[in-house]
């Protein structure tokens, strides 16, 4: 399963959500499908995309927030699972692309390649609904169910360790950040 195919399969669903991604391939691939004002790419600070999503979800209970996380990032901040589980905002969807690799920095294997089970960790941390998917069809179903569902969900998507040749986009970090905030403010006024 390719991450890009997964992202493409849910791209239309993302229009009505606030989307936060991690750095590297995830950001570059989502951007390549077409940037939107409701997408924020956290191009560093590994581990904090999910915390950002939690802050958004707690402050904007009427908005659906989707975080596209990765195994390397999540392993750097496993405590985020216990914090998300503690508050379990029903409007938060936590997707983890698990390619068992730190792809952006040379493809070194992460601990998920030697048996660490992120779905199991999420469930044991208290995330109300955690599942692993291995096909694009199941990915799309899981994301759609979570977006329209009523409980915090962590979806671990097992994907191949391949990605784009480069990660730099033509969207500057600050442009993205100000556009994203302005978009949210426009929703609040509407």
């Amino acid at each position, binding site marked *: 399963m390719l991450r890009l195919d997964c992202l493409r399969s849910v791209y239309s669903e993302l229009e009505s959500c606030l989307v936060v991604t991690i750095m590297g391939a995830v950001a570059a691939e989502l951007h390549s499908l077409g940037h939107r004002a409701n997408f924020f790419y956290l191009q560093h*600070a590994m581990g*904090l995309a999910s*915390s*950002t999503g*939690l*802050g958004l979800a*707690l402050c904007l209970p009427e908005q659906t927030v989707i975080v596209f996380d990765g195994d390397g990032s999540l392993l750097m901040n496993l405590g*985020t699972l216990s914090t998300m589980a503690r508050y379990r905002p029903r409007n938060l969807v936590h997707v983890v692309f698990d390619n068992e690799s730190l792809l952006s920095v040379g493809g070194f294997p992460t601990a998920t390649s030697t048996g660490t089970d992120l779905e199991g960790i999420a469930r044991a941390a208290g995330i109300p609904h955690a599942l692993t998917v291995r096909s694009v069809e199941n990915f799309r179903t899981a994301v759609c169910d979570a977006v329209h569902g009523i409980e915090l969900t962590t979806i671990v998507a097992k994907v191949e360790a391949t990605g784009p040749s480069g990660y730099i986009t033509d969207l500057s970090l*600050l442009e993205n950040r100000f556009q994203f905030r302005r978009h*949210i403010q426009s929703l609040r006024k509407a």
Partner: protein
Amino acid sequence: MPVSLTNSKLIYETLKECDIRLVSALPETWLVHLIHLTDEDPEMTLVRLAKEEEAVGISAGAHFAGVKSAMLMQNHGFLASINGIVSFAHLYKIPLLMLISYRGTFGERDPWQTQGGNVTEPLLRALSIPYSFLDQVETVKKRIRQAQTLAESSLQPVAVLLTRDLMWEE
């Protein structure tokens, strides 16, 4: 417990007056009253963390959402947050109001706090984080307001250091 309830209330009242509506925290002795006050206030969202660096992401999310937030942490929590501060708050110009209990300085009895006390201000300066002290009752409100004003106008982290003189009664 000799943590000052009166001065904790003064700090908390100021946070409310500053329209803070979300506080993230990790418990530490000097912060107990502040955390209880936050937890008991239905107008406030308290996010109890596993590690302080999470608060950088949570406050960034709150900022994007248009909600004013504050971070309550010990100075060792500040040390644990530094990558998030640099690679998120500084990189993306996110305002952070950090209330940091300044352990390990004059009067500290706990040996384990003393190294953190030595490096807190040098690190704040190295990171170009503006900071001031909460050390006198008379200036608490003004300092917190000024810190928030600067964080919002400069879009960067600003710290106030909660000192023993204010927080501890003995």
